């Protein structure tokens, strides 16, 4: 296990920023922490990165009690890029390299990888937000750490930047790195992660594999002569996973292997007229909003 937390809680006055959060992240997994702003993602990551003290609960990295030196094996980017304003990009990475005890030659490599090599001698405070974010990613990659902890890695980036950052993360994942990523953008989590935990107001709403939890089911919408009877029949026959009547039509999720033509035929056998039958793809966003409602 790369990371295991058990019942992490932290309050700021009356606000429970994290409430009993238990996670486990396996080696090589791409783990997403999904939730709207203020759901406790950053607090949770802050705790496991040892910069915030939990009120209760514990966590382990690499099956060991956390100790400072262990974080040399973890590349991190939490919230906003934090660098020395008055130092150049190269100097800033020098600070990180000295802490991590990595080869100084690595610095130019990660700057190049994130497209910042040309700006290596610029002061950090002359960078645009997008470039700062890239530098943070470069710093997380410095020393080739085996785990990446990323909090909103695409924050502040333009579409091209988002695509580049995503490419880098997916590359790292392919290299066998473990990725722990917090995001409020579902699409980001879906494209990168294999496992996800959904948080809301400090609580865990759901946890599991992305393709099971955030599956984009096809919803079949049917309008027939007798909706009640058709719905009942379909459910009894086991042709649908779920069905409900909404706005005078049946909205159903078909059981696996059941197509619209099977439903059509079934209605015909029952002698029920089909007026309309169409497929609507429910978006992940809808499901996410449904979950955090």
């Amino acid at each position, binding site marked *: 296990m790369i990371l295991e937390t058990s019942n992490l809680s932290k309050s700021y006055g009356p606000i429970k920023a994290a409430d009993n959060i238990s996670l486990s992240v396996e080696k090589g997994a791409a783990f997403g922490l999904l939730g709207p702003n203020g759901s406790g993602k950053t607090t949770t990551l802050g705790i496991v990165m040892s910069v915030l003290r939990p009120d209760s609960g514990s966590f382990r990295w690499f099956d060991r009690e956390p100790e400072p030196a262990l974080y040399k094996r973890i590349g991190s980017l939490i919230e906003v890029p934090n*660098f020395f304003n008055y130092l150049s990009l190269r100097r800033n990475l020098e600070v990180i390299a000295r802490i991590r005890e990595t080869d100084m030659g690595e610095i130019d490599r990660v700057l190049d990888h994130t497209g910042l090599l040309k700006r290596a001698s610029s002061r950090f405070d002359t960078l645009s937000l997008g470039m700062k974010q890239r530098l943070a990613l470069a710093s997380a990659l410095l020393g080739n750490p085996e785990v990446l902890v990323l909090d909103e890695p695409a924050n502040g980036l333009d579409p091209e930047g988002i695509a580049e950052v995503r490419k880098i993360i997916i590359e790292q994942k392919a290299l066998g790195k473990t990725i722990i990523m917090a995001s409020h953008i579902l699409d980001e989590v879906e494209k990168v992660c294999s496992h996800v935990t959904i948080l809301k107001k400090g609580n865990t709403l759901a946890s599991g594999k992305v393709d099971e939890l955030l599956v984009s089911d096809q919803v079949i919408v049917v309008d027939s002569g007798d909706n009640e009877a058709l719905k009942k029949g379909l459910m009894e026959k086991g042709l649908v996973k779920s069905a409900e009547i909404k706005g005078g039509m049946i909205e159903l999720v078909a059981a696996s292997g059941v197509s619209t033509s099977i439903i059509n035929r079934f209605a015909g056998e029952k002698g029920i007229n089909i007026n309309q039958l169409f497929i609507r793809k429910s978006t992940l966003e809808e499901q996410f909003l449904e979950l955090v409602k």
Partner: protein
Amino acid sequence: MKRLLALEWSKISSYGFFRVILILTLSLFLLTVFVFSRVDISVPGFTWRNLFRFPDVWKSFAWVASWFNLLLGILVITVAGNEYSGRTLRQQVMTGLSREEWLAGKGMLIIALAIFGVAMVSLSGLIFGFIYTGDLSTGMIFKNTGILLVYFLQATGYMVLGLLFISLFRSNALSIIMYLLYFIMIEPILRGLCPAEARSWFPVKIISHLTPLPEFVQVTSGDAMSANQLTLEGMGIMPRQLDSTTTIIAALVYIMLFASITYLLVKRKDL
């Protein structure tokens, strides 16, 4: 240790403010002693330039240098404070630096700055001493150089207190204001509220008394009247003070106390 020194160096070597403060300290100190050396007080029987002769030059210069300790304290507040406000301390901890290591790095910075101060006093003391001393026996040159170590301790004390303030308030502006207020108002008021025998025991009192005002009456009179009644205390110009050994021990205790509180603050608080 080498790693932490190199880390601190990476952070400050191209930091303009750091250089400015060091240059300011050095040039203001040199200007001050230069101006003092030109003062012409002609009172029969008293020679002003004795203050610049070996071995008295050490005490005079250590005393002048102590005025600039506040600048060094503010420098430490700023350097450490940047790492709180820019949240780079947080990032460094997430990168694998322990909070103890961070603090040790700041300790090394403080020691390096105190060494800078000692070097400043030593070199200028040697130069002025050679210029103003007629009798250049080695015994005279190195007599009283112990005050350099005491000045080192004092500068360290000012800076450790600065580190304590920034670890407590975490904002450069607030820490600098509180730091200066503590020196010029808060502690003096507290001292005033206390009974006379307790007044000498306050931290700033102790630390600033490490390099006391030179016994200028005695020194400028050329020790002609080797009498205790010519001490500033004896003449009632200065209040009664603790003796130097007690002051040094008390200062050491305070410095260790400040360092321990700073350690607890850095160790316990969220970043």
